Each structure stands twice: as structure tokens, then as C-alpha cells.
């Protein structure tokens, strides 16, 4: 049987200082299958960004199990986590996070240059140009990020996230720094990607865009809530059964 793209069980994250412990996530159970488009909503401080960091292996959980395509990743070294991130996950940030010193082409090519097995120059070029075509930015390949508008920068960020053919795209407030026209355009692009089979997990404040996802999760005080506001229990048994297999 095919493994789910993401499988989290009982994930906790505690931020500890000398004086106190903050429980950012309290036993998250989550499954995302290939081709899903999941949106995560919730008020500020509910743990959305922390969950996204854990999903993207930017941080490690304090407890629980986390599998990507059936492989346990919760205890990986920084270096191993970097490889998984590079090969399986694409990131789209609210503030685009393009590197000013690099051209658009080089920004997009960056994930391929960090590959465990080096990628041929010609292949990098083909894939970058294909991604630029996907986001309709081919003509801007040699520009620097600061020569682009916010909407254009976010399209480049999407292209960079796509170039490595990741199993999952993690999207953090993709429209937060954009006006509504550009925001809509980006969301249309994400929906189209999902329609073409890309798995997406998006954190957003905007209920309009959250509704565009196929699944919508609410987060409060570090727990995933059901639509009526109670923690989700019904999935837990099924999830554990999947994990046992």
C-alpha cells in the first residue's frame, strides 16, 4: 500500500527556557495524502508557524512520530533533515525570501545545486526554465529580485519551490505581502498546481483562501480542532492503523 505523504502522530513541541515551558503543539495527529490541498487556520500564537516548521523539518518535534512517505524523520540529524527538505519539500514564504544577490535563474536553481547527487548543468537549466514557464516569468530569468514586483517575486518563489519536484509544498501566508489582485493570481496558481497533482499544505489567515483548500484544519492552543471547535478524535484511530501497517 502506498504511504501517505505526511503522517504525524502525537507530535508535541515545547519551547523551554530556564524559567518556563511553552507548549506550542500538544499532540498533533495529521495525515496528508498525495494530491491533498490542506489549509491550516487559526489565531496568532495558536501554533500554525510551529506546525509548518515541523512539517518542513525546519525544526524538530519534542515528541511524537513524523513520517514523510513512510520514512520516520523526527530524529534526523541537521544534515539528513536538509537532504529530505531538499528532495521532498518545497517552501513558499510570506515574504518570498529570495536572495537579493542572485538572479532569478540562480534563485530558482538553488535547490538543485544543494542536491545530494550533483545535477548536470543542462538539466538544471531545463528544469529552471520549465518552472519559469510554469509561473510565466521566463523573460525575467536574468533579473534580480529587487527589480521585480511583489507578485512577481512570489511567483519566482513558487518556481523555486517547484524546481526540485517535491512531494509536498509548504506554503506560509503566500498572499500576506501582496495586494488582492496579485494574491488572487498566486492562489490561482497554487490551485492549478494542486489540480495537476501537487500536494499542498498552506497556512493562512485569510478564510477566503483557506476555503480554496480541499481540507481545512483549525488550530487553537496547539491542538487541531474539528469544525465544531472540539479536538479531532475520530481520525486518530485510523491514523494509528495506517502507521501500524
Amino acid at each position: 500500500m502506498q504511504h501517505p505523504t505526511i503522517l504525524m502522530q502525537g507530535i508535541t513541541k515545547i519551547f523551554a527556557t530556564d524559567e518556563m515551558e511553552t507548549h506550542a503543539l500538544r499532540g498533533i495527529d495529521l495525515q496528508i495524502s498525495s494530491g491533498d490541498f490542506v489549509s491550516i487556520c487559526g489565531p496568532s500564537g495558536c501554533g500554525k508557524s510551529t506546525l509548518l516548521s515541523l512539517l518542513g523539518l525546519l525544526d524538530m518535534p519534542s515528541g511524537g512520530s513524523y513520517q514523510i512517505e513512510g520514512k520516520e524523520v523526527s530524529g534526523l540529524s541537521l544534515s539528513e533533515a536538509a537532504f529530505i527538505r531538499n528532495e521532498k519539500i518545497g517552501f513558499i514564504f510570506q515574504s518570498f525570501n529570495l536572495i537579493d544577490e542572485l538572479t532569478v535563474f540562480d534563485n530558482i536553481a538553488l535547490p538543485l545545486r544543494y542536491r545530494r547527487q550533483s545535477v548536470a548543468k543542462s538539466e538544471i537549466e531545463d528544469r529552471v526554465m520549465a518552472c519559469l514557464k510554469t509561473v510565466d516569468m521566463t523573460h525575467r530569468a536574468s533579473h534580480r529580485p529587487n527589480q521585480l514586483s511583489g507578485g512577481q517575486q512570489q511567483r519566482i518563489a513558487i518556481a523555486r519551490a517547484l524546481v526540485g519536484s517535491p512531494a509536498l509544498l509548504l506554503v506560509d501566508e503566500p498572499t500576506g505581502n501582496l495586494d488582492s489582485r496579485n494574491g488572487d493570481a498566486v492562489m490561482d496558481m497554487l490551485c492549478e498546481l494542486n489540480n495537476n497533482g501537487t500536494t499542498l499544505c498552506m497556512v493562512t489567515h485569510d478564510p477566503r483562501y483557506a476555503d480554496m483548500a480541499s481540507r481545512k484544519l483549525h488550530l487553537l492552543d496547539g491542538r487541531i480542532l474539528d469544525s465544531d471547535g472540539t479536538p479531532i478524535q475520530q481520525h486518530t484511530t485510523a491514523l494509528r492503523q495506517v502507521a501500524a501497517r
Partner: protein
Amino acid sequence: MLTIKDFSTALYALSKAKGYAATVVLTLGLTLGTLIAMFNLNYQILQAPLPYADEEQLVVGSTAWLDKDGSVLYPRIMPSGLIQQFYDKPSDKLSAHALLRYQTLAMTLRDLADSPQVQVSYTTPGYMQMFQMPMVQGRAFSADEDIGSKNAVAVLTEHVWRNHYNADPALVGRKVRIGDIDFTVVGIAAAAFSEPQLLGPSRHTDVWLPWDMNPRQQNISPASLNGWHFYLGKLKNAAERQAFEQEIAPELNSKYQDVNAANASEAGRSLLFSAEPLRQLLQGDSSGRTLWMLAGSLMLLLIATANITNLLLSRAAKQQRTMSIQAALGAQRHHLFSQILAELGCLLAAALLLALGVAQSAYWLLQSYAASTLPRLSALGFDWPTLVFALLTTAVMALLFAQLISRQINYKALQQNLQSSGKGSGLQISSNTRQLLICSQVALAALLLVCSAQVLLQSLDQLRQHIGFSSEQRFQIAIDDTTPRPDSSLTTEQRQMASNLRKDELMQITDVFRQHPAVQQASVSNDAPISYAGTFSAMTFLPAMDNPDHIVESRITTTDQHFIPLFNIQLLQGRNFSAQEVTARTPVVIINQAFAQQLQPDGQVLGQRLYSRQGLAYEIIGISANHNLPDEWSVEEPFRSFIPRNLINNSTLLLHLKPGMHIDKTALNQMMAQVSLNFRAASIYSIKDNVDRVLLSNYLAAAVTTALVVLSFVLAAIGIYGVLSYSVQLRRFELGVRMAIGARPLTILRQLLGENLKPVLAGLVLAAVLLAALWLGLQQTTLMVELSAGGFAVPLLLIVLLTVLTSLLSVWGIIRKPAIYALQGQ
């Protein structure tokens, strides 16, 4: 305008950044202190007024002895018999004049039980008048003690008076015995008297005696040339110095030619009189060294300045939010400038205080360890020029730093900073500035490291070399010898006999010494391989009698058969003197390898003959190994010769004591008294100390350059780390993004290294260019520099290694944590 509030705010802010404040104060304090000390040293040597009235009119007359081709056989040598004629009829260009001779022989205060050794100078009343000798008791020499009076009077230093006569006020008028004469003390020169040290800083005078009492002067031949004699003058007009020289020089040379007319081997040789300004003579060649030291300290301060700039920029970056709020509330650029200046003022004031302490320590170190090599060290202190220099330098640095930081602040961006929820970057130092800082830092550090390393290796090489003779447990006994000198009225044979008798007595003394249980071996000679006073005797040899134009000057040791084994001097060829040769004064000679190779390039000269000026043939019976001990007179191994003939005027006893054994003056005097009461031990000098004294400049160079190497390396480390760390802090988010899209820690490190090494390599290239320019510059000077590949390679490798380590250190806090920390700016 800065207010007290500005300073109190600055102090509070600094109390919250103690590490930063301590680094700035320590770095600047150490380097500024060194610069202040070096400034003062150079000021004292080059510019500070001498403590004598009308110093610019004071000149020191001496002559250079020129060979037939015009080359200088000996500089600063004096026909003391002839110069006295000029003293008797002084030039009308002089308002005062004096003769001065430093005694080379050991002399003691024989009226005291412990017969302490004293350094004696013979002079005329004009000396004390010209240099305004202050007296604590009695008076200076008067006209009654001038040449011809033969008055046995003495002026003692306050040091001798206090240490050996308990500052007895009744000493003036009493007699003290020096050599075999009783001198009436007429005055005590105050300790405040700054003696013009014409022989260099290591020679001072304890007792001044009248010129007439100079034993050498009594039997001197007019043709005799002597070192350590000077004709001192005070010109009526300083501008007439050359005219004075031109007045004396031809006449003196003419007189010299006249007295040597009968001596064929001297034909063509001449004397050139010169009247050097006193300041120039006292300064000697020390200004070259001290200016280098000043340049080195300035370089250190420049490196420190680059470091501090980095630290200040980092600090300014960290204060970005505070500045943004101030800008949002209406602070103008000059308000921010005042705030920076107040903080810098506090830091630099603390650094200045520390610097003055460092300078004071440097004075103490110089006075303790370099007093015999650098002049006027006793004058070092916080005089007005030095304090003004220190304050000006500090103020200029404060203003420059404040201006630099102020310029780097993007004021407009600061104002917008708060508008973008603090996510902007209003105070980022441009990449070019950072690269330039690293490049300049590396260039300066590499330049200083390479120069210091070259000098250090050269000094260590010299220190590691075997000096060519043994010095452990070897001692030189300076003898106060009151044996009556043969009168010039005696025939040569009679004088020879008197000399032989004296040598026989000294050899009997060494026989007595050898009976002492502490003594391993004893010898007698005119000089030790390295003398406590730095003196040596010289003899001219003619390799061929039929060619009087070809002469070879050699340092001569007149000794016995025990000298060479006593010092373990290696004989490369031939043999030592036999006892019979010593007793019979056989004309045989042992020469060193350098001398042998001068005679024959292959050095095979055993059995050949060398001739004295008088025509006596010496057979070469041995070749000794060269010494490796360049001294103040010769940087290369001079020609040396050893003969078992009569001792020259001075004589010294040499002892090799058994391990762990000691011997004191009383025991030595008792043993000497068994043979003759004319001999007393003036002082016992350790040959090892004599060697160390000669090597002091190497030790000093090694110590100073080691300190420079360490300091410049530490400064470079702090500076490069500061820039890289700051640079990484600015790029923290970018690095987080790279990590988020899959860059591993090693990849990040590799990338940073690649980027950091570029300005480092540019700095190294710049340093190479500067070094090449320096090298070309040195070719135009007389400085001898031996280059070593290690002296280049090691510093450069160290800097590259330093870059690698500081790169790792600066990024370690980011790459050892999950990527989210960098993305969140933690």
C-alpha cells in the same frame, strides 16, 4: 554639543555591553599605549632638547684613520698627543673646549677594603663647564687642574659617594686612592647630571680625573692613535662647525704626516678630523631602530583601528532599533552623531588611561632591558609633548570613528525602519565596506606578521647558533694593575723586559689560581673572547714583507697555552701553543678561519708567516674555528689572531670554575697578593653575561617581535572575527532561507569560506605588494635583511587558517541549530 546626560546615557549603555566595551578599551589601550611609548622614545632621541645650554653649539671632535685608498681603517680615533697641541692653542671659533678620555683599564677605589671597580674618565675643566655639571658637594675642576698642573684631584659621582662613602660630607677634601695615586676629592657631581655618553648608553663615568693623570698620556708617542679619546668644543656660532673642521683637519693631518715621515708602512695614510654635532653622536644609529619600532606600533594601532571599526559598526547595527525610534521621534543625524561620540568618548577615555599605564610599563621595560643599547632612556616619561600627542591621537580617533559610523548609518532607511514593523534593514554596512575592512585588516596584519616573523627568525637563528666558544662557568677578572709602566726614556729592550716581568707575574698568579679547589683552569690574556667592556685590541699584520701596502687588521689576543682549551675553542688545523713557546715568547700565531681564508681562499696556511710592522715573522701554527657572535663593532666574523707574546697594556685573568663552584674577590686578591701587591681584582665578570649582553639586541628583537607577532595575530583574529561575525549576523535570514531549501551545514560553511577567502586573498596580495615595496626600499638602505621562506609561509598560512576558524566560529551558532532559528533571527 555633548552634555553630561549624553555621557551618563553612554555609560549606562556600555555597562550593558561589558564584553564589547572591554574589547575596545583593551585593544585600543594596548596599541595606543605602545604608540605613545614609541613616540616618546623617538621624541627623546630625535627632538627633545639635550640638558645642556646652547646644545646646538656643542661638537665632538675625533678623527677617522684613512688608508691609502681613502677607506676608513678606524673611525673615531684620536692622535691624543697631537690633539693636545690644539687644546693648548684653541681655535677662535670656540668659546669653550675640553679633552676627554675614557679609561679602558679596570680601576678600583683602593682605599676601600672591598676595592670596588670604578669607571674613570680623564678630562679638563672645560668639560664640566660646557655640560654644566651640578655639584652636591664641593666644586668642579678649576683652571688650577688644567693640563700641566698635575694636580691629583677627583670629582666623584653622587652614586659612588652614597654607595661607597655613605654620603659622607667630609669626603670632599679627603683623599681616595685610585690605582697607585691618592686623589683629593674636590667635588661630588649631582645625580641629576646627565653625562653625555659619547661611547653609547652602556658606558658611564664614576670618577673624573684631570687629563694629566691619564697614565697613557704620560708616555704617549705623538704618532700613537687611540680610541675613546675626544676633543669637545663649544662653538661661538653653530653655523661655523664646518669652518672649524676645515681649520683643524689639514693642520692635524699635516702634523700626523710629519711624525710618521720616517715610517714607510704609514706612507699614504692620513687622518680626517671631524666635529660632529653632539646630538648626532649621542643619537648614533639608534634612531633607525626606534623609527622602525614607531612604525611597528603605528601599524599595530592601524590594525586595532580596523578592528575597532568593525566592532563599532557591529555595535551600531545592534543599536538599530533604538536609533530607529529616535529617528521616528525626530532625532536628526547630528543627534545620533552626538550619541555615538559620547559613547566613543567614554571608551577612548578609558583606553587612554590604560594606554598611559601601558606606556609607563613600556618605559620601565626599556629602561630595564635596553638601557645599554638605546640612548636617553632615563628621560622617558610623560612630558608635555607626549601628553599632547596622546590626547590629540585619542581625540582624532574618536572623531574619525564617530564620523565613520555616522556616515554608514542610512538615516533615511532608519526612519522607514519602524514603518516596516522592524523587518527592514536601516543600518546595514555595505558589502563593499565589509570587504574593504577585511582586506585592509588582512593586508596590515600580514605585513606586520611577515616583517615580525622575518626579524624573529633572524634573531632566533643567531640565538640558536653555537657562539664558537664555551661560556658556562667561565669568568673574566678585570685587574687593577698598579705595576709601574716602563718609561718612554727606557730602551726597547728594557721596556720589553719590564713587560716580560709583568707577564711572568701574571702567569705565576694563574699557577696559584690552578691550585684553588674551585678552579678548573686559569689563563691570562689581554682580552676575553668577549670582554665585559666590549673592548678588543687590534694588530696589523703584513702577509708579505716585500709588500707593505698589503696589510691585514686583526683582533689580537696575547695569551698563554691555556686560553684556547679553557674556552673550548675548536682548532680546525694545526696545534695550540706549547708551554715552551709561551715561556720563550716564540713568534708563533694561531689565526681564525676567516683570517686564513683571507690569506688563502682554501684556508691552507699552516706554516706560512705573518709579519708585524716591525718586521718580526710569526709562523702560523693553528687555525681556529670562527666565532658566531657579531658585536657592535662587526656584524661579520672579524679576523682574529692569538699570540703567546707580551701582553698589551691591558691584561685580564680568565677562570674556568668547576661545576657549582664560586670564587669571590677576597679569595682572588689573597691569591694575587702571594705573587704581587700591584694586582687586585677589580671585578669578576661572567663570560656568559658578557655573551648575553652582546646578544641582548637579539633577545630584545626576539622578545619584541614575538610580542608583535602575538599581538598582531590576536588583533587580526579579533578583527577578522568581528567582520565575519557581523557579516554573518546580517545574513542570518538569508542563510536560514538557504537551509530551508536544503543547504546542509557543511554547504553553508563551504560557501561562506569561499566568500570570506576572497577579501582575505585580496588582502594577502596587497600585503605582498607592500612587502615588495618595502623590500625594494630596504635595498636602498644599509640595513641587512636575511629573508626566510618560513617567515613568509607561516604568517600567510596562519591568516588563512585564522579565516577558516573565524568563518566556522561566526557561522557555528547558525548551522548547529535547525533552520527555523535562523529564519526567526534567533
